[in-house]
């Protein structure tokens, strides 16, 4: 047996050709799975736009999307200013959180990690609470923007703080998780403290903000999140070979030639951008970032070149599903989607754990 490879040794036998052919078939199958997921996401996007209290029919929506002038004024406002931004927001937030989740799970080597594990969402909530309770406002920007901007600044700041703390201890993933959890508790305590001293009205606003609601979507914040997602998602995808290698073990990945510290740092920056932007606009929406990647994993496996887009699509599908469910379950209540996402997410999550337990 000769193990050294050289040009002459790479005359593949029949077996080798067969392996490559079967690998190609597997790749094509995964590509088709991705297309199916995309189709489901688009169908749910349309269903979400159609679902709602006013009597806007699917036919009218289709007509209105093709030709806005076919709708009367009220229907046009409902479609273009309410339903469409909210539905796009659901897709984008789901995609952003699930992509952040899959990166987090790989980088921390922990299947229970999510974009919220390290305190990003708690920090965002604290930022929003500070803005709501103090009632300050940024010149030329509305009060809503201050809440979002503050949430974003706090979320990014918490990741910077976390990176600083972890680098003091050598940058290992276990310290990252421990410091992250410490930050979650600190931020939550700070939110409670604020609520304790705040007026009843502010407390109500803070609580409502934290529930996670797509009704805050408008074209401006949808565009901002779309921009962030369109820039960051391809960067995540470009890191997929390194992430797949890291999944085989940290030292093994280093030995292949992955600069793990750098990968972890840039991954955290991507995660914080995606999460902070999403949370700043819609509040805390749990479980998408945890469950989305796991569903994608079950469909498509661990090759991150497929897993990352599949996670993004699964996240979008889940949040669109939650949004539709929220509107159908309690038609007139405008139920915050964050509540429904968690209610749907918990049983899915428990089922996943049970399934995993049986497999081992």
């Amino acid at each position, binding site marked *: 047996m000769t193990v050294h490879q050289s040009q002459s040794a790479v005359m593949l036998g029949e077996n080798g050709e067969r392996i490559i052919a079967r690998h190609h078939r597997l790749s094509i199958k995964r590509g088709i799975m991705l297309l199916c997921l995309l189709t489901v996401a688009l169908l749910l996007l349309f269903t979400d736009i159609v679902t709602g209290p006013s009597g806007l029919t699917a036919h009218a929506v289709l007509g209105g999307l093709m030709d806005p002038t076919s709708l009367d004024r009220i229907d046009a406002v409902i479609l273009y200013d309410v339903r469409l931004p909210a539905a796009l927001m659901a897709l984008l937030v789901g995609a952003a959180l699930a992509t952040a989740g899959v990166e987090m799970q790989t980088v921390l080597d922990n299947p229970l990690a999510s974009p919220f594990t390290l305190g990003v969402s708690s920090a965002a909530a604290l930022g929003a609470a500070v803005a709501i309770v103090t009632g300050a406002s940024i010149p030329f920007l509305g009060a809503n923007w201050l809440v979002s901007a503050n949430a974003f600044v706090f979320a990014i700041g918490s990741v910077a703080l976390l990176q600083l703390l972890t680098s003091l201890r050598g940058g290992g993933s276990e310290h990252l998780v421990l410091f992250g959890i410490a930050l979650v508790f600190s931020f939550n305590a700070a939110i409670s403290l604020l609520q304790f001293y705040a007026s009843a009205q502010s407390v109500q606003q803070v609580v409502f903000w934290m529930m996670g609601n797509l009704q805050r979507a408008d074209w401006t914040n949808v565009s901002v999140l779309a921009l962030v997602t369109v820039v960051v998602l391809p960067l995540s995808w470009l890191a997929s070979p390194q992430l797949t290698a890291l999944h085989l073990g940290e030292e093994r990945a280093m030995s292949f030639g992955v600069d793990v510290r750098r990968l972890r740092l840039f991954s955290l920056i991507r995660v914080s951008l995606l999460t902070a932007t999403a949370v700043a606009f819609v509040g805390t929406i749990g479980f998408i970032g945890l469950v989305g990647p796991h569903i994608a*994993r079950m469909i498509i496996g661990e090759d991150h070149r497929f897993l990352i887009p599949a996670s993004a699509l699964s996240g979008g599908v889940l949040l669109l599903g939650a949004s539709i469910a929220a509107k159908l379950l309690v038609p007139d209540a405008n139920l915050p989607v964050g509540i429904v996402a968690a209610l749907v997410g918990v049983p899915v999550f428990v089922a996943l754990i049970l399934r995993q337990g049986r497999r081992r």
Partner: protein
Amino acid sequence: MTALSLRDVHAGYAGKPVLHGVSLPDVTPGQILALTGPNAAGKSTVLKAIGGFLPVRGTIMLGPDDITRLKPFQRAGKISYMPQALPRGVGLNVFESVLAALRIAGKHGATISGLSLERQAAALIENLDLGDIALSNIDTLSGGQKQMAALAQALVGNPSVLLLDEPTSALDLRHQDEFMRVIRSVAASGTIVVVVLHELALAARMSDRIAVLSKGRIVAEGLPVEVLSRDILADVWGIDAEVTVNARGSLLIDVLGPSRNVIKKEIE
């Protein structure tokens, strides 16, 4: 010739020194050096020092280059480190895992240019006779097959040095033997192999040289039959054992019980 040598290497973990001046004479291409010694002697630490995972004081030469200044990812293609076991829940098949390693190695110029990574992965898998399990999920493989999959990943980029950390510790006798025979053939093609082994008989049979570590120092180094003496077994492992060489030249170690100094210590 590109030989590997260590001179006065000190290394350890966050404020806890483990190696206190380890030196090893040239290990040449084609040779297998087995590192052995009792638990906590620093065997794995030597591998991690060579692999670049730890800050090191001293020199580690590979040919004319002192490699202590390179980060682990800069050693890709030259030095390959295979940890004890693959993680659980890998979720990739053997071919994909080798391809994943090749994609990274390709970025460092450690692959064959002008040949698709898929063909290189398939060739590597064929050479190791892993065709039957190439498209099986690693999680479903037996212990021996998992180690072969890990070996295929480690051989990506055709490294000059292969570091193996207790590769046989979870394998039964037959698979220990099979795995080490493959390692022999890897070495025979011109690779320097440094392997941590607990099984002394296996180390004696499969390696060209043995280095015995104790408390972070090399206490003996040389041919297996020279190194594994009754005195060394008593001093380092604390066992009294009869060491004989049979007619085929194999080393037989018959453990009789704890060594005298261990018994003396217990009495005191």
